[in-house]
């Protein structure tokens, strides 16, 4: 499992730079039954498809942000800081390249 994520602050990085925070789940607002509480605490939808989830840039700016990722292919559709506009996660334009993290140029 090796893919890239765009940290909204720092830019594109290897997935190993980040900590995974789990799929987005809604915390119960009103007093839940024991079953609802247990579902919230212990069960996940775990979809085989596009999932909205939390990531934490633990080796960088330590910000928490959302991502939408297809769990079948690990293609990340977008990332965004909470409250911000989603930014396309994968780099597609030629002039918008991931920066090299060190190393000798050609």
């Amino acid at each position, binding site marked *: 499992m*090796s893919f*890239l994520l765009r940290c909204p602050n720092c830019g594109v990085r290897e997935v190993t730079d980040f900590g995974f925070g789990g799929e987005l789940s809604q915390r119960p607002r009103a007093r839940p039954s024991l079953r609802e509480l247990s579902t919230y605490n*212990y069960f996940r939808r775990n979809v085989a498809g596009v999932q909205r989830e939390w990531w934490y840039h633990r080796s960088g700016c330590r910000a928490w942000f959302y991502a939408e990722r297809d769990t079948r292919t690990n293609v990340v559709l977008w990332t965004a800081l909470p409250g911000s506009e989603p930014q396309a996660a994968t780099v597609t334009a030629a002039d918008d390249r991931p920066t090299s993290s060190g*190393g000798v140029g050609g």
Partner: protein
Amino acid sequence: MSRLPQQPDERIDRARAINFSFDGRTVAALEGDTIGSALHAAGQRTFSRSFKYHRRRGLFCCVGQCPNCLVAVDGAPGVRACVEPVREGIRVEHLNARPSLEFDVMRATDLFGGPFTPPGFYYKTFIRPRRLWPLYEKVLRHAAGLGVLRRSQDEREWRTEYRRRHADVLVVGGGLAGLSAATAAAELGADVVLVDDGPEPGGRMLADGGAEQARALVATARAAGVEILERASALGYYDGMVPVWQGDTLHQVRARRHVFATGTIDQPLVFSGNDLPGVMLAEGARRLAALYAVAPGERAVLVTTSDRGLEAAASLQTAGVTIVAIADLRRERRSAAEPLISAGAELLTEHTIVEATGRRTVSGAVLAPLGGGGGRRRYPCDLILVSGGSTPASSLPLQSGARAEYSQADGHFALGELPDGVHAAGELADHGGQAAVALSGTLEGTRAALALGLGDDATRQLAVDLAQRLLGAAAERSPVAIPPPVSGADRGKCFACLCEDVTSKDIGLTVAEGYDSIELSKRYTTVTMGPCQGRMCQLASVRLMGAETGQAPEQVGLTTARPPWTTVPMGALAGRPFEPAKRSAIHSRHRTLGATVMWAGDWRRAYHYGNPQEEALSVHRAAGVIDVSTLGKLLLRGPQAGEFLDMMYPNRFSNLAAGRVRYGVMTSDAGRITDDGTICRLDEQSFYVTTTSSGAGAVEQWFSWWLADWRMDVHLTDLTQALCAVNLAGPRAREILSSIAEFDCDPEQFKYLDGRRGLVAGVPCLVLRIGFVGELGYEIHCPAAHGEHLWDALLEAGADVGIRPFGLEPQRVLRLQKMHIIVGQDTDSESNPYAAAMPWIVKLDRDQDFIGRWALEHAAEQQSETQLVGFEMTGATVPTEGSVVVIDGRTPAGQVTSARFSPQLEKVIGLAWVPAALASDGAAITISDAGTTLQAQIVTQPFYDPAGEVLRS
């Protein structure tokens, strides 16, 4: 010495001699030699003994693909002599032969052991009698494997550097196609990395007369900005990340497009005695002569399925090797054979080789017409050149998701459809001849750049033109014969797999036993699982499987391509061989004081300073100081800081007055205890939160996550590493602090649970008066740069009253006396505050929601099965932490989580989870500690100063 006269592209420097040792003998070499070329030049013909049968093996491929020349260099096994450069003074040793290469006792398995060691023998033989298993195991362990690893730690030191390289285009393979592709993409503006595993880039050009051309291409590529990783192996394709191992560095290359130009792998033939030293791949022999001016032999017989073999033999003939006879499996007499025939070689078309004869090395080759029948002829020779076709080196593109399609014309598995982002160029993509290979490279490089959005309409047109020219340049491919799966099987062992000593007969046996699919037979015979990873044997084994099962090769199929493609040491992948250790800024003082330092998580901490019992007692009698800089320290500021803390903890903090401290226990939303610490309100909008040492990171993440989700107006700053903290405790603590503090320490002015800011020993500090170890105490936080000064000042100020530093061990005893729990030691991921004897921490009498509220409401209504309580032992034995609390003599019902002897109380005390029914003062419990039964009584109140009067003094 079999050194040839000067060869045009030789890599050796005849003026510079190098000496090294092989099995104790000194060997003379030249700079530029490989270990293999130098040894061969010195007359060595046996380089190793095979894996199972311990048969002699000599140089075969000369390009690092087969297993025959594996040796140990300076104690490190698994080195391929044929590509490893010589260095002055290296100590080279053989592998897998005892007592020597020349006389190996294990050869007995070849002569007699056959019946005992068929494929999968370990499922059939050496099973009965079972009581001999330890003996079998010992013998087999000794016999298995190639080479011995050094045992001592410092001899095995390995340090790998990691480098993350993001690029536009990664080109794997630095031959003609790869260099062309890399240059084309780079000239269009792409950021290109090229990886090549040869002694220098150039691929086949280096040995077939194109070395100068190769160097010119390399210069052009560099000028275009290509980063070339030389002597580097691409290990695999992991979802678009290709790790490249180069010396001591692992480059993790992530490129947006991949161009594979890895070429083809020359194939051997399967015939009787095909593993004898003196049988070499024609291209391998060519390399030995062209690059190192070493004569592979004097009189050679060539067996070939294509023109490539004829060309290789012709160049060897030019170098001085006599070609005696040629068995060409094809029908027509090729023009490439003319130079050989004119020099006297006898050409036999539609013939193949059935046997290599000889004892230690080749002494003759038996050629026979294809299709059986008579007419076998033996030709005396000392070298057999084998050119059995080639197979694309397609492992990496296959790993990326490309399909393999069997090509009838070439008799091998070619690359079919490629996934998006992956390109194949050159011989790998079945282009033949210089012109086509170069065009193909340029085309794929251009296409890769176009796919990235580089280039323009002219570039697009160029790509179309190149593709057109490529079609035209597709040379009339010289015909290639498809060899029979095996010939001469009646004459002796015919090896399909050199690495694992699997013969054609073994494959027949395997199918007969029912392992008739390629994936099953691979695992049963271990074919393709050795050092060559299928380079030499995958195609051969597919043909043999097809013959045995009556299937065509495309029906047999290939086994799944898997990384690593090249043997790589575990150390290169396993990560850096050091453990990061964190030390407090005061650490050097502990060393000077002779502390016993041990790991606590990833911190190095002082466990005690020589006498833990005395240290604990001196805290109680006078004063002690402990370095607690490892505590997590978080600063929360903002208008909603108090509100935030109310949400995060089961008790309240928004009502904490400025300058006051309160203990907090954090729970998860399932109501489980996750961490504990103290919180001091600095002012209206600022709170200083401490956490456990090991929980610091987790709490910071937890807080910042909820802040991100709720978007409250709170700023979180992690001060864990920025501040030091020391705890001064004991009846004399106040007078010691007073003597160096600028503020009033009078008990009325500085009450229990007050937090004060001021200068201590001239250093700005936050001082929290808390009950850390059950005595009058002050936790002093200061900037890390002043930690040592503060420590020294406290020790000096307390010298008169007998202050002693104390470590984690005495701290443990003191806290246990007060029944302070250690989160993670006395609690686990299921413990809630009610069961852990802390019901007072949960404040349900407020309306507000907080993390864990609902779970705790449920927990409050339920009686938990077990409760955390204190106990004291009846006897003097300290039970092991983790011992089981039993009822009815043997039913486990709880466990001991902490236990220590208290010198102050002169008894053994501890904490344990016990059944709720027993959780009352004086109840008797039984502890089972590894077979021993111990008795104890429950104590529910702290063992020392239960009312906390000493703390509040």
